[in-house]
């Protein structure tokens, strides 16, 4: 059964899509965790859901709605660049309202059942060749942009006062990071769904920074953990007919727990 499935085209597409998404989710996750804006990922993701549901209602491709929804919230959070408790409360307020809108859109949309489940919990094995192409394009944009702004973004993420003093455009980089995060999130939703985005954007980065104190190594390790989770999850779901997202979250969470235990013993 397993080996037969492994010959299937849709499985290859799923593995490729998973790999592409893991690279960008793992890489941007390190900056998200370093800046302490994990909650914003959730908001961006849920508003991606709202956008997708809205697109379904008016008969557009849900992916376009999802990317738009994520980008709008990403831009707002980046421009506001809030700090501390105000950031969390504002993020929460936006998130709740967005989800409320999403519920309305879903109730207006007739054939919602499967579409909604796929959006919320992912449908990696349903990725089409066209979707894979757009995933690769989005991932390439995020990866190239991150490579170009890596140093100044790291500087402004870990040491904003001195970065600003040295002429680094801290605010513009914050907006850029949130826009890239929105793109990465929209891509990740295709694999694990709106509700489980954190398992690829946050968990691998959080595990990686328990294992290394080097910023470059943390990014590579985070990507590796995201890759292991996604590809491992897809392969396991071929063997046992449980949701792929369950396997992905289980692997990434296990790695996270092991990393924490290892760090605690040091």
């Amino acid at each position, binding site marked *: 059964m397993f080996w037969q499935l492994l010959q299937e085209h849709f499985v290859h597409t799923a593995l490729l899509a998973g790999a592409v998404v893991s690279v960008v989710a793992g890489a941007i996750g*390190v900056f998200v965790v370093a800046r302490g804006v994990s909650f914003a990922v959730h908001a961006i993701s849920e508003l991606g859901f709202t956008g997708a549901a809205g697109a379904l209602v008016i008969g557009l491709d849900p992916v376009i709605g999802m990317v738009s929804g994520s980008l709008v919230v990403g831009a707002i959070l980046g421009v506001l660049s809030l700090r501390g408790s105000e950031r969390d409360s504002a993020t929460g307020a936006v998130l709740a309202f967005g989800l409320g809108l999403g519920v309305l859109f879903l109730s207006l949309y007739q054939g919602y059942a499967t579409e909604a489940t796929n959006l919320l919990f992912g449908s990696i094995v349903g990725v089409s060749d066209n979707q894979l192409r757009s995933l690769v394009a989005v991932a390439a944009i995020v990866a190239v942009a991150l490579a170009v702004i890596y140093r100044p973004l790291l*500087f402004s993420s*870990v040491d904003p006062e001195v*970065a600003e003093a*040295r002429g680094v455009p801290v605010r513009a980089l914050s907006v850029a990071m949130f826009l890239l995060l929105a793109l990465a999130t929209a891509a990740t939703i295709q694999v694990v769904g709106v509700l489980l985005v954190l398992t690829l954007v946050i968990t691998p980065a959080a595990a990686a920074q328990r294992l290394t104190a080097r910023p470059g*190594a943390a990014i590579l390790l985070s990507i590796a953990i995201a890759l292991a989770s996604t590809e491992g999850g897809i392969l396991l779901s071929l063997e046992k007919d449980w949701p792929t997202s369950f396997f992905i979250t289980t692997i990434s969470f296990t790695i996270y727990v092991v990393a924490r235990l290892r760090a605690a013993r040091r």
Partner: protein
Amino acid sequence: MSTPPVVSAEGLALRFGERELFGGLSFQLGRGEFLAVLGPNGSGKTSLVRLLLGLTQPSAGRVTIEGREPSTNRACVGYVPQQRAFERDLPLRGRDLVRLGLDGHRYAAGRLAASDRARIDAALVAVGASAYADAPVGVLSGGEQQRLRVAQALVCDPRLLLVDEPLLSLDLAYQRIVVGLIDRRRRDAGTPVVFVTHDVNPILPVVDRVLYLAGGTWAIGSVDEVMSTETLSRLYGTEVDVLRVRGRVVVVGVPDEHHHEH
């Protein structure tokens, strides 16, 4: 002084709406000079640093660093902020923090050149931080972090050092160490220092001149000239006593700062 001044401020004014932080501020800072900037909270000390960094534009007047606008000449002004805790599990080592002072502003930066690696090592040695350079910054003490911050500011071989309350939350031993590192740099390399502080005592042995900002006015001169009953009473517009107790300067009778701002 035969060499031209490094910092030159002429008729500098800074206003936020109705409130003037200072006006008509003129001073020059030559090579190797150590200038302390003192004053109550909200008197414009940090704003002056931001003017020198080119992050704020003056309401009137002009400030130049080596004859150029600060915003066009920022590439190597060393800046040490006040100590701020890093998250314990931030993936950043001491040497990474120092490295950001060298290439943190560069886009599409590649691998570190051997010469840059040597500069980072030299900066770490100079502040005595080599032993913990590979530890995550988040697990280091405040004093160790401030040593790294000095190394970060020095690694680009700055022509001017701006330090903003670098001693806050440090114990006395570390205050002395950090002041000593900054003092040594200006003596060895002639880098002038602008040192913002609320307390002049930790830097009394090294300071050349004091710029005191208070109540929209200012005074500049030697410690004895500025930190005097007469000068501070004039700045605050009320009777303030300046005493010398066992070599320390003690200021008595400064009006309540909140009240003062109105």
